[in-house]
């Protein structure tokens, strides 16, 4: 078949091209620009090459922030995923209570991040907070402004409170899509409750669960607002996650070069992990339909 060449088609692509350029490419390129230069003020810049990158890759500060970030994401995933699935399994399947549960579960998801931070900041304070005061009255030494463990516990519990519903709602949707016949067949096969979970519910939830884990990983890996509001990264550096460290570097110290290099590496890590997830997920789907 012969294709007609019409160069005017470029005009039709132009608006999108401009939009993407101004909203993504140009800002990103500014960051790239900063990341390879150094400045001593007066808007004078000097070529620095990959110096910032190599310096950051050898910086203990960055690696410990990275380690804390990985630990935080791992802990909240390890808590939220099983808990969310457990909640979904125990939610009513139909009727008025199903709707009530859905609304209640959706509520935490509607609260803005900094409000969640503020709620927990006040809730956990030893002097006036319900939780902090009660714990102190019970003789438990709990003070998130002093004790790193208390600070971490507060952040983890807060994140679980905020986001477990997302996993629960997605799992619930996955569970609802399982035809009744599967449960009936399991009864006839004398399958135990655990078998039903392992061989029917979990495989059927696999797809949505992968998406839930991906979303939660990305979100928790980029967490900023809540720790900023509650602990400000402290005590010491114990809750200084990557975003908090980045902001300290870029706006606190105004080290534009290193901060730009930091941003780019941060961005690449998030993209790499998402790509791995995406590839694994699509490969699983392919395996599903390969022989079909």
């Amino acid at each position, binding site marked *: 078949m012969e294709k007609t060449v019409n160069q005017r088609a470029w005009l039709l692509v132009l608006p999108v091209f401009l939009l993407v350029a101004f909203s993504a490419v140009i800002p990103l390129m500014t960051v790239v620009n900063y990341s390879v230069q150094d400045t001593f003020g007066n808007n004078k810049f000097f070529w620095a090459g990959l110096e910032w990158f190599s310096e950051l890759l050898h910086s203990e500060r960055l690696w410990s922030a990275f380690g804390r970030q990985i630990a935080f994401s791992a802990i909240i995933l390890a808590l939220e995923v099983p808990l969310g699935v457990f909640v979904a399994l125990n939610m009513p399947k139909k009727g008025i209570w199903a709707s009530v549960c859905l609304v209640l579960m959706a509520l935490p998801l509607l609260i803005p991040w900094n409000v969640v931070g503020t709620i927990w900041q006040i809730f956990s304070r030893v002097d006036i907070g319900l939780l902090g005061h009660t714990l102190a009255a019970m003789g438990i030494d709990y003070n998130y402004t002093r004790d790193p463990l208390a600070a971490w516990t507060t952040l983890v519990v807060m994140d679980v409170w905020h986001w477990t519903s997302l996993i629960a709602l997605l799992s619930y949707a996955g569970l609802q899509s399982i*035809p009744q*016949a599967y449960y009936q*067949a399991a*009864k*006839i096969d*004398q399958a135990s409750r655990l078998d039903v979970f392992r*061989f029917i519910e979990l495989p059927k939830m696999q797809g949505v669960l992968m998406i839930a884990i991906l979303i939660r990983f990305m979100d928790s890996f980029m967490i900023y607002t809540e720790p900023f509001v509650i602990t400000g990264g402290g005590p010491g550096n114990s809750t200084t996650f990557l975003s908090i460290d980045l902001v300290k570097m870029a706006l606190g110290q105004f080290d534009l070069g290193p901060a730009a290099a930091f941003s780019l590496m941060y961005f690449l890590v998030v993209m790499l992990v998402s790509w791995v997830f995406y590839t694994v997920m699509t490969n699983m789907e392919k395996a*599903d339909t390969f*022989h*079909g």
Partner: protein
Amino acid sequence: MRMAKITLSNLAHAYHPNPASEDDYALKQTSHVWEDGKAYALLGPSGCGKTTLLNIISGLITPSQGRVFFDDDDVTSIPTAQRNIAQVFQFPVVYDTMTVRENLAFALRNRGMDKAGISRRVDIIAVMLGLEETLDCKARALSADAKQKISLGRGLVREDVNAILFDEPLTVIDPAMKLELRIQLKSLHNELGHTMIYVTHDQTEALSFADEVVVMDKGRVLQTGTPEALFEAPAHTFVGHFIGSPGMNVLDVTVDGSRAYLDGNLIKLGHHYGTPAGKVQIGIRPEHISLNATNGLPAQILRVEDVGRHKIVRAQAMGQTLNLIASNQTTINTGMASLGFERGKISVFVDGWRFSPSHGQEGAM
């Protein structure tokens, strides 16, 4: 081998908690005995209550009223897992993450069968269904056809079941395979002698599989009988119409003794029926109507369809349409014709139900 006679006693089921009228019942009051070792088909259109009836037998639904007995044991309140029933569903139900072999072995393993016994049974079933080559594939990787064969296999793999229930199991199977599987199921029934209940809306499937066919409509069992009985002597106009292709012609008439009148046109009947009151109809199969009879019923031929084996003629007589079957060789022109009814084959229905002739009186000539 354990098997059982299944008795349904005064069974009825409504999905509403408080059924007000008879229409609220998905299954209207029914009593039925399923003899041990027979092959039954439960035939009826979608929504007629046949799946409800099946699920009551397997215990997935507890009936609103009535009892279910296996032999003499009342199992009405016994859960499905303890009833020792196998059931195959309309759409493939397989355990995705298991291999085909594990799928087939699952029910046996849960019942504590030893390894040698399991692998013997699995191999037999796999060969029978043509699954040998895929035994070690993951079930999720197979086509819908193959998955449904796994479902069938899981239903057939247990030897000691009280009955095997099939809920339209061949819906997703392609037509060529359908015929083959139906023959396999039938021969399997002859071989193992399990009681089998096969739910379907396809009369060919029902008639070719079953020793006895139970025809249902609107939650009611209309007739139970051999395929021949359903064809020759339908108990209800619905059965007459539902069985056969095309179904029985049902005409509104008045009957007086052995004569029926269709708008004043005489149709002679084979038996004496007195003067029945109510809505009186006669039924005649398309196979039993001939064209060009002397003194027949005048009719207008509307359309002729050649379906290969024979021709289906659609005609209209006194405002009522009817079908008849003519041999392939005859040439038929649309226009006026005179229809002759084989008088011995005419059934009479009153208010929908079959009406028996008065005894001892043959129809007057």
